[in-house]
């Protein structure tokens, strides 16, 4: 049985280099190549490959973003590819996630494919790999110096939508999911930890309202005091959110003092 693989890299030379290496191997076939993260998600869900080779650094949706946005049942075995990213390497090694460094060598590629095959043959290993992969993505978010997010990629049916951060009015956590509401009254759900997302947002623009809520400062139109020193805020889209006791004090300092 030939392994069915997808390669995703925004740089054509790097993608073709890896593809050429793989074509020389008889036991693997490339079913599709993606030039960016959104394409990768679409192609993976379309072709349902055994393994996806995801470049870590891609514009807008990077390799980790692809893993985050893929529906759980479509998630293939993943091998990350990176030129030099010490945080990623650390996160992957901590969680036994396969990765390849650029320029990819034949020996490493063969080894990665051998492990993929091993996991495909044993369901328990495969489940463990999926768990590890998600954990590694979280670890990476925590340890990597986060760049400012300008747009948040979200799924909308089969599409990936990039939501500008400036349009987001509130972010509400529910379990492992985050519900985003935009100024245009759109609702999106992403799988992300609120703490990690908050770290990648501009603190001058977003404010914490409670343990599970973030709001865009520009979107707050009214603040209503509640009994007990707490507040309730109303956002420009009409959304009403309560503010926790601790955050109320901070809110007062930032918004209500002239």
């Amino acid at each position, binding site marked *: 049985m030939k392994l069915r693989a997808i390669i995703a890299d925004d*740089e054509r*030379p*790097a993608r*073709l*280099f890896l593809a*050429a290496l793989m074509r020389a191997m008889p036991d693997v076939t490339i079913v599709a190549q993606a030039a960016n993260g959104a394409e990768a998600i679409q192609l993976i869900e379309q072709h349902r490959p055994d393994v996806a080779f995801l470049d870590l650094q891609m514009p807008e949706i990077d390799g980790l973003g692809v893993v985050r946005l893929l529906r759980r049942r479509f998630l293939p075995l993943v091998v990350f590819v990176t030129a030099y*990213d010490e945080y990623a390497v650390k996160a992957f090694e901590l969680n036994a996630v396969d990765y390849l460094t650029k320029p990819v060598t034949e020996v490493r590629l063969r080894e990665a494919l051998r492990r993929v095959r091993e996991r495909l043959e044993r369901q328990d290993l495969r489940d463990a790999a999926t768990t590890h992969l998600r954990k590694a993505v979280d670890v990476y978010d925590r340890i990597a110096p986060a760049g400012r997010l300008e747009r948040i990629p979200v799924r909308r049916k089969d599409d990936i939508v990039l939501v500008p951060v400036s349009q987001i009015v509130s972010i509400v956590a529910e379990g492992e999911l985050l519900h985003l509401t935009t100024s245009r009254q759109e609702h999106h759900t992403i799988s992300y930890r609120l703490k990690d997302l908050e770290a990648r947002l*501009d603190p*001058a623009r977003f404010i914490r309202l409670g343990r599970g809520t973030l709001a865009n400062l520009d979107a707050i139109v009214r603040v209503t005091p509640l009994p007990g020193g707490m507040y309730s805020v109303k956002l420009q889209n009409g959304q009403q959110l309560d503010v926790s006791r601790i955050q109320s004090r901070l809110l007062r300092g930032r918004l209500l003092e002239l």
Partner: protein
Amino acid sequence: MSPVVPASPGLIVDLLGFLTGTVLYVMLVTMVWRERMREGMPFLSRRGRLPLLTGVCGVVWNLGALASFVTRAAGAEPLAPAILAATFSALGFLPAVVVHSLFEGRETVAGRRIIGLAIATAYGLSATAAVLHIVSAARGLPVPSGPALWLLTGGFTALIAVLLFVTPQQPVGRRGIWVVALSVFAVSALHFGRHVGNEAWWVELIGHHASLPLALAILHQGYRFALADLFLKNAIALLSFMGISLAVFSGAMAPLLRWQDASGQWDPRAISLFVALWMATALTFPVLRRWSAWFVDRAVLRRPDYDAALGLLAERLETAESEGAVVDDAAAAVQSALGITEARVIADPLPDGNRQVVVSGSALRASVPDSTTALLLRLQTVEAPHPAIALGPTAAGRRLLFDDVRLLEAIARLAARRIDSLRVAHERLDRNLREQEMQRLATEAELRALRAQLNPHFLFNALTTIGYLIQHSPARALETLLRLTNVLRGVLRRSTAEFSTLGDEIDLIASYLEIEQARFEERLQVAITVSPDLRAVPVPTLLLQPLVENAVRHGIAGRRSGGAIRVAADLDDGMLRVVVGDTGIGFNASAARQGTGVGLRSVGERLRAHYGARAALRIQSAVGAGTTIEIEIPVSESGDGPAADGRARPRGASMVQPR
């Protein structure tokens, strides 16, 4: 014209005997004297005085006897009685020296008094005989004096009996030697007393030349004389040569001598044969010398084969890989060859008073055999430390003789050279290791410098690009590889210099951007517009490269559609302005305030350090529209050091906020 004395065997034996005796004793005196000179011993030093006395007495006796014999044989006037008296007195002292040498250095032996008495008696007998000779000579009585000779014969015969009684602890062989020597002497003195001049040749031989075995016996008493082995070898070779010559003469030459015709002319054939025989005999001497050396080494001194021992040591040293092993091997060789009871290795000794240091030159200053002081064999290596081997006394209790010391020196030399070569080899190895280490450190330092300037991402992505190009377009792969080489070398070279020229910097970033273009392909557009006139303007090294790197990372890599990078420079009113712009994602005010990235911050710091407030760094950025960085630095008209006075100013470069 004196009458020709008819040749008789006795006559020839005497003549040859006295000649040989003279040669031998002169050799002995010379050797002892040279030894004393070399060691700077005082004239009356105890050491070596007996061999010297023996030699002097022997020379006087043999010369006197030879002269007397020649004058008598030539029918000339007999020698003056005084000379004869001196000659025979010298002969008379020889047995006393033998007795003395029996006990020299053995004062601790029991019966010291008896020994002292015996020595005194021996010298007394000799002295009395000498007085008697002199008195005879003075009174005109015949010399040698008959009573004196009788006295010597009787006296020394009695002394032999006494000595045999007081030296029961001596080995039989040794006792045999001196007993025979003294007995021969006693008998020969008797012979002189009744000498009439026509005895059989063997009687002449024993009677006249008893002093030769005496000399050997004296030398054998503990080898007090360091050159004893050498002397013995020479003496034995000489004596056997004499014997062979005599045999050849009486067997072949004597008949030849009769080949005269009636008119007394020599037959030329006889002369040729005579000369040929003489040469053949002479040629045997080296062989005799070797045989006698072998005989003395093996039979008399019972030495092992020193040459073989040296060869074996040399062989073993070749495989010795450490100094310790070399010294151990040398110590073992010394111990087994010389029969030394103990050989201890001393790492780096300081010569001290108790130990003799054996090195070339003072080699013969070896300790006396029965003393407990150890001998120190120093391995004279080129450099300190000089390891040494402390040697105990020999098992046989004899002192080290000439050849022993020569062996020690050879061993020491062999071991020292091996140690030298080991040290050189080790040093070379060490140096190689050090050089490798230095090389490694240098490479590491270079790599660190490189890493500080170049994002590793760039390097690995460039290599991946080259890998792709090798597969699809080898010519472009080579091109890109050379550009990468340019960039690496450029960055490394700049890591030591503070300033370079705008032209060089532009070349560097052009190479850099070309590599990135090969990576991003159509997604990256580059426009560099710098007038050639400005290429010579000095600028701080690697000032633009971080800006370009940022532009690629934020402006291009983060956008699916890519973008353009623009580099431009112009000179206006003494200020050089360089602009690096991209059409990338841009960033907003708060990000700019935080200082985007290490690269931009370090550019600002370096500008401030070089130019103070006269330089400016301006950042313009808008989200989604890209970023433009503008640098302004002053250019001095003379062009000599753009930072001549700027460095002193502590002011920061102005960081202008986005407009």
